[in-house]
């Protein structure tokens, strides 16, 4: 895990949009380059607070690796005033960035294990840096299973990269959608249903899961049914993060703060509170 930068964590650094890539009708991927100085290092799974000046801040995970060209890459979906303003930024526009914050995927800790990576919808974005790092060091892992769920085929994220991963013979990728028209040749159904079909050794598998919380709940159930122990399942949690350094309490989740103790959390540490509706 990379620590909080030494500068005042409440003061955003100015970054400029270097490139905008439209992923879906409501989703873009932004490359953000620092206006001055170097971008801090970070680990897959961490997030930044992105500040649309005059509108507000939102937490957004990195969707590409720290090795990528000195920029932050964020995939942003327009779901509200702030994310919408950020998703509409043009090349050259300024944006405030605080971070990197939070815990990371156990990419190095999982070396030697089978990896089961389960992404739902936009949850593929925070997992992509981990997937890229794992694939770049493929020989250090056992089987790699990537299971992806989406609302429908046209909402699939990173289609070109998915195709590249699919071409590899050393990775098992399965995609499922909630519904599709008759032209779709892939799976239709919910992503937890892919787990019993996946070939991995549950006793030596580590699972990385990111997506809507309902999807993660049932994915955890399917992983547990398959024999994966709770201490080998990692989830990326989401709550209303504000300060991002564990001070304000907005993202409190039982005895933890998602911004500081998460977003990536080991399931056995939150199992007792994971399904508590009031949290």
């Amino acid at each position, binding site marked *: 895990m990379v620590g909080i930068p030494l500068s005042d964590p409440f003061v955003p650094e100015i970054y400029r949009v270097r490139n905008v890539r439209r992923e879906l009708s409501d989703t873009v991927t932004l490359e953000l380059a620092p206006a001055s100085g170097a971008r801090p290092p970070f680990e897959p799974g961490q997030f930044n607070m992105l500040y649309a000046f005059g509108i507000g801040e939102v937490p957004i995970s990195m969707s590409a690796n720290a090795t990528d060209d000195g920029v932050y890459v964020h995939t942003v979906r327009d*779901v509200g005033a702030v994310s919408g303003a950020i998703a509409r930024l043009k090349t050259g526009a300024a944006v405030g960035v605080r971070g990197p914050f939070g815990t990371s995927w156990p990419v190095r800790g999982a070396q030697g294990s089978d990896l089961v990576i389960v992404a739902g919808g936009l949850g593929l974005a925070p997992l992509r840096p981990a997937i890229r790092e794992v694939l770049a060091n493929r020989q250090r892992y056992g089987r790699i299973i990537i299971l992806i769920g989406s609302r429908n085929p046209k909402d699939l994220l990173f289609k070109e990269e998915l195709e590249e991963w699919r071409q590899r013979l050393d990775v098992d990728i399965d995609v499922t959608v909630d519904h599709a028209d008759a032209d779709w040749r892939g799976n239709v159904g919910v992503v937890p249903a892919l787990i019993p079909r996946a070939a991995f050794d549950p006793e030596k598998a580590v699972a990385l899961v990111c997506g809507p919380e309902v999807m993660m709940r049932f994915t955890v159930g399917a992983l547990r049914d398959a024999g994966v122990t709770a201490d080998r399942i990692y989830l990326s949690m989401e709550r209303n993060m504000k300060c991002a350094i564990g001070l304000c309490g907005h993202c409190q989740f039982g005895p933890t703060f998602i911004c500081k103790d998460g977003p990536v959390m080991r399931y056995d540490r939150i199992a007792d509170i994971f399904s508590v509706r009031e949290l």
Partner: protein
Amino acid sequence: MAGLEHVVSEHPFFAGLDHQYSDLVAGCARNHRFDAEQYLFHEGDPANEFFLIRHGRVALEITAPGRAPIIFATLGEGEVVGASWVVPPYRWMFDVRALEVTRAIGINAECLRGKCDADHHLGYEMMKRFLPIFVKRLHATRLQLLDVYGQH
């Protein structure tokens, strides 16, 4: 028949089923091969046979006038296609189309219903296998209805 008995008893859907019962089921079984795009059955047809998929994949579809068919589930190797044979009036409620060459064991429903009526232990074994499928698919449908990947 010996071959079919083996195939039925080895299919994951019948895992753990006593041999005397898997032999009874196999007595109602026959082999099928479906080409890609071939329909296994259509909505409204009599549900007189259900299928244990051995290889391949099928799509469960619903059609509405003026709209393209919507696939709401796909099933593959080791799974079972069709549960309407259990519930009167024994008619299929959707279309099923092979997405690729699919090999399956078809179980004659009238034959198996008769054997279940005659031997309630066999009927109970069938219910123990089909009820979880009903529950699992109902649950999956709930999740799909939640539209968890949509904007919230």
